[in-house]
């Protein structure tokens, strides 16, 4: 089976349990088991070759650009770990089938488990470190899901998050480390990296890489000070604890240290960091484990301790220590998984796993008792069990190692740790299975069915078998894995056997076991002291830190983004100011080249009007209507400015847009408050004023800088001026640009207008249908309003003006190509003619006479403009290519027809429709409930009312 398939099988199979659960729990378990079995078999098919020393590889390019490829390789180390993962995985699947409750969603459980399994296999088979990172992070994620599996438990949710944070952090550090490593080695492939020892260790980035990688390993493998997440992960169902948090996932860190051992180990830094961390973790874990009353907590801390042990061994940097580490990994996996499952069985059957509430179970649960005791004794380091062997070899290495400048310190400390380890192991046996029988269990305890005990039993068989026949059973794999770890064909001398003679290690072992037993005897006396002793509680600290982070994040977020538009605007303005200024100062500018023009009286008066009106608008802006009047003045001045500086089209547009804008704002102001309250204190005004003034000065300076400089290259508009008449067919270059040279801008622009109208219409509809709309139609009539709605003079004047204005509109439209004007300006003129009609005669009256819907006009405008553009395809020209010609008819002077005019018609219709739809929508908001449309345009119409000349009312004479 190709390696990639072994890694991917669990992923591919992960959906099976989720589907098969419909066929029952057995089906789900069976499907998960089959997948795992398939992968396991696939793996084992490679075993003989690997044990022979071959390396199986599989290469598939995934992201060659990055160097992230689906490259896998299988050597002894990989085989060992993959075997553990898949093998124990099978046992766990079996165990979990009987462990989980009927109410638990088993399908999801197996799905998560398989995802995890795949990720784990992926890590150990990856040849590419980036690929390994992918799997690495996946283990964190799937672990998160598994820890939080019992989602109703708050401890589960918190534990899951904690594990994710800690291991996630490590994973991210690992990414950094791996990227550096890859950069140093010039490849992300392990097989390449592992050959670069000298290069890597001599590189200045070695230490950063080492630190980052170790951070990843230590967090994953729960090394001090990152150990605290592991006990909280025990909120997960026990199969998870057994699988992830003892046998496999936590060993990923160890695996990686082992994997990179050939290139990373052997330096002082490596020894100092790794060995010391491992030592501290080993001691601390063992110490805490001794005083944990929760069986799973005890096992968790013992796991921490043993992980520390292996870390320390790897840290020693000697080849033999590395081989011992491998051996202990195997042994720990077997006895610890068995112990967790035992604890699970006890919890399952007795309803508690609190050691204080347990005791005397050896009779009620004999099978469990045997399994648990053997596994625990192995953990304690009792001979004929596998734990003894690797511990013995470890102690041997310890005695050879100088640490902290002394050859004995390490031995003493490690012996203490071993002693503590023996003590908690004995406690597991004694306080649970021995002692008086108790009858206060939540459930009546008895041995479970084989479904639950078969898996731990199998492991315990291994524990014993290895303990007795180590070389026969594990010799091959240890050698193979050891070779892989130390990266050398020749293994150092070691022997896997029970009896090594009377050595220092044996003495230490004896001290540990005997001392451990003694310590257990004193446990009842020491434990209260321990409980009373002040010590940092990791969860409290973690929660406090996380809480502070979240609170800090909230403060930062809501403190920055506090909803104040004033702030956002000010930051915007200042950013533009500062960035612009810095950009200016960062560059150099040539001396002014253009001469300044003299100031004429018109310039002067225009400037005065504009400035005074602007300043007055600032001063008086609280009165909104007055402010609007002042804005109108500015608009007029701007229009005149345009015409004075040779832009009649702009002047026309500005003047017309100004009128429509005023109408629009007045329509809105009807509903809005008339006054802006004076709510800001003086400092705020000063602050805003200061910002405004500086930005204003900057804008002025920029304008001035442009005025004194010249184009660096000839402007493209020279072409427009040159060809407007000959190729564009129009004298008005601005119009030719708008409908021809840059017609596409105009196309976009009418679409903007069309959208604006559409948006306004849609919003009007949604306001009218909302609560606000109901309030609106029921709002009271203004008491102080004048009585007359539609004065006679206005109505009549409008009736005369309207046809004339339409005439003007058409005139402006037709001549636009050659003189100021065009579709846009004409559209505005026509709109204003209609708006005047609305104002004069009333909305209902005027609208009732309007047959074409404005929506349709916008649509028609867009379609006409588009079709005009598309028409040029017919003559094999790009979109919007124009054509024009001059024609002669009898009696009529030569005239010009241009397709651009058709486009301009589309513009006209769209503008007209958009302006009308927008303003009509505003006007519709004003309609009150019960208001009936007047059948007449004018309120007072003497030709309609027949009122007699009644006597003048003299009563009111003044």
């Amino acid at each position, binding site marked *: 089976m190709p390696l990639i398939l072994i890694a991917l099988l669990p992923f591919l199979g992960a959906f099976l349990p989720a589907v098969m659960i419909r066929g029952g729990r057995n089906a789900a378990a069976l499907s998960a088991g089959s997948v795992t079995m398939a992968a396991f078999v696939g793996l084992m098919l490679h075993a003989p070759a690997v044990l022979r020393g071959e390396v199986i590889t599989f290469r598939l390019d995934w992201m060659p650009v990055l160097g992230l490829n689906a490259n896998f390789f299988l050597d002894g180390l990989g085989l060992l770990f993959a075997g553990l993962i898949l093998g124990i995985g099978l046992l766990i699947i079996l165990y979990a089938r009987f462990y989980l409750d009927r109410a638990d969603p088993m399908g999801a459980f197996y799905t998560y488990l398989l995802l995890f399994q795949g990720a784990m296999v992926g890590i150990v088979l990856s040849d590419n470190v980036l690929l390994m990172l992918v799997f690495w992070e996946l283990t964190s994620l799937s672990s998160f899901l598994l820890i939080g599996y019992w989602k109703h438990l708050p401890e589960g949710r918190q534990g899951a998050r904690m594990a994710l944070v800690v291991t996630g952090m490590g994973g991210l550090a690992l990414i950094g480390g791996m990227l550096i490593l890859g950069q140093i080695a010039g490849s992300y492939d392990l097989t390449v990296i592992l050959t670069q020892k000298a290069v890597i260790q001599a590189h200045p980035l070695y230490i950063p890489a080492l630190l980052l990688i170790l951070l990843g390993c230590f967090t994953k493998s729960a090394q001090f000070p990152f150990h605290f997440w592991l006990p909280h992960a025990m909120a997960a169902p026990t199969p998870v604890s057994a699988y992830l948090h003892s046998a496999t996932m936590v060993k990923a860190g160890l695996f990686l240290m082992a994997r990179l051992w050939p290139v990373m180990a052997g330096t002082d830094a490596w020894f100092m960091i790794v060995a010391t961390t491992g030592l501290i973790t080993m001691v601390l874990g063992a110490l805490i484990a001794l005083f944990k009353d929760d069986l799973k907590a005890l096992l968790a801390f013992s796991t921490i301790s043993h992980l520390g042990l292996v870390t320390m061994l790897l840290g020693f940097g000697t080849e033999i220590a590395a081989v011992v580490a491998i051996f202990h990994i195997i042994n720990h996996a077997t006895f610890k998984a068995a112990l967790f499952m035992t604890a699970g069985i006890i919890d399952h059957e007795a309803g508690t796993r609190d050691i204080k509430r347990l005791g005397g179970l050896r009779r009620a649960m004999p099978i469990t008792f045997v399994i648990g005791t053997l596994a625990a004794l192995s953990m304690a380091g009792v001979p004929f069990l596998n734990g003894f062997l690797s511990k013995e070899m470890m102690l041997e290495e310890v005695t050879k190692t100088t640490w902290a400048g002394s050859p004995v310190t390490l031995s003493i400390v490690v012996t203490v740790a071993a002693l503590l380890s023996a003590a908690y192991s004995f406690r597991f046996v004694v306080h649970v299975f021995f002692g008086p029988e108790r009858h206060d269990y939540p459930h009546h305890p008895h041995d479970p069915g084989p479904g639950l005990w078969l898996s731990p039993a199998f492991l315990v068989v291994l524990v014993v078998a290895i303990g007795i026949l180590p070389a026969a059973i594990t010799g091959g794999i240890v050698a193979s894995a050891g070779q892989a770890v130390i990266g050398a064909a020749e293994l150092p001398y070691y022997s896997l056997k029970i009896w090594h003679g009377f050595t220092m290690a044996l003495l230490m072992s004896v001290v540990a076991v005997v001392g451990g037993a003694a310590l257990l005897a004193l446990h009842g006396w020491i434990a209260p002291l321990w409980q009373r002793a002040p010590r940092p509680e990791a969860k409290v600290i973690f929660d406090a830190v996380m809480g502070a982070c979240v609170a800090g994040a909230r403060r930062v977020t809501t403190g920055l983004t506090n909803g104040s538009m004033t702030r956002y605007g000010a930051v915007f303005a200042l950013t533009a100011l500062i960035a612009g200024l810095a950009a200016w100062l960062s560059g150099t500018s040539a001396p002014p080249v253009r001469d300044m023009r003299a100031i004429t*009286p*018109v310039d*002067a*008066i225009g400037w*005065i*009007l504009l400035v*005074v*009106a602007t300043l*007055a608008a600032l001063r008086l802006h609280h009165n909104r*209507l*007055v402010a*609007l*009047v*002042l804005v*109108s*003045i500015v608009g*007029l001045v701007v*229009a*005149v400015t345009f*015409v*004075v500086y*040779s832009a*009649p089209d702009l*002047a*026309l547009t500005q*003047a*017309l847009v*100004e*009128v429509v804008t*005023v*109408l629009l704002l*007045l*329509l809105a*102001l*009807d509903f809005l408050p008339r006054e802006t309250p004076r709510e800001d204190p003086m400092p705020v005004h000063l602050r805003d004023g200061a910002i405004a003034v500086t930005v204003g000065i900057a804008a002025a300076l920029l304008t001035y800088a442009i005025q004194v400089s010249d184009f660096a290259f000839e402007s493209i508009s020279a072409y427009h001026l040159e060809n407007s008449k000959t190729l564009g067919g129009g004298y008005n270059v601005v119009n030719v640009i708008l409908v021809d040279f840059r017609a596409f801008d105009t196309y976009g622009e009418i679409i903007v207008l069309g959208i604006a109208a559409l948006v306004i219409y849609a919003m009007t509809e949604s306001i009218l249908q909302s609560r606000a709309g109901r309030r609106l139609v029921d709002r009271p009539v*203004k008491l102080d*309003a*004048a009585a007359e*709605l539609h004065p006679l003079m*206005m109505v009549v004047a409008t009736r005369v003006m309207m046809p004339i*204005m339409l005439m*003007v509109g058409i005139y*402006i439209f037709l001549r636009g190509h050659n*003189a*100021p*004007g065009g579709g846009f*300006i004409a559209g505005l*003129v026509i709109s*204003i003619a209609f*708006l*005047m009609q*609305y*104002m004069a005669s*009333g*909305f209902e009256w005027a609208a009732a006479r309007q047959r074409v819907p404005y929506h349709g006009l916008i649509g028609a405008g867009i379609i006409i403009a588009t079709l005009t553009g598309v028409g040029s395809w017919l003559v094999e020209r790009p979109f919007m290519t124009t054509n024009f010609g001059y024609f002669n008819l009898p009696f009529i002077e030569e005239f010009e027809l241009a397709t651009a005019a058709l486009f301009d018609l589309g513009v006209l219709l769209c503008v007209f429709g958009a302006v009308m739809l927008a*303003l009509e929508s*505003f*006007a519709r908001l*004003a309609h009150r409930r019960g208001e009936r449309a007047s059948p007449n345009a004018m309120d007072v119409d003497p030709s309609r009312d027949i009122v007699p000349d009644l006597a003048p009312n003299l009563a009111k004479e003044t």
Partner: protein
Amino acid sequence: MIAMALTFAIGCFALGLALNLWRLLSSPTLGDRILALDTMAINMIALVVLLGIATGLEAFFEVSLVIAMVGFVSTIAYARFYLRGNIIE
């Protein structure tokens, strides 16, 4: 002679505009302000036509025509707004 007269007329209307602005800012009632605005529009029309005479450019005329045609619409709108609160009803 015409040039001088033009300058004189431009000066008159420019001064007129300044006076309008003064009225607009100093006036207590909104009606006066609207009237001042309307007068400014008219003075600007005159000014633009004068510039047209001075330069001989047709373009100025178009602008004055349009301001004359629609300038009053905003005046009416302001007045209507102040009278009724709503300009289209």
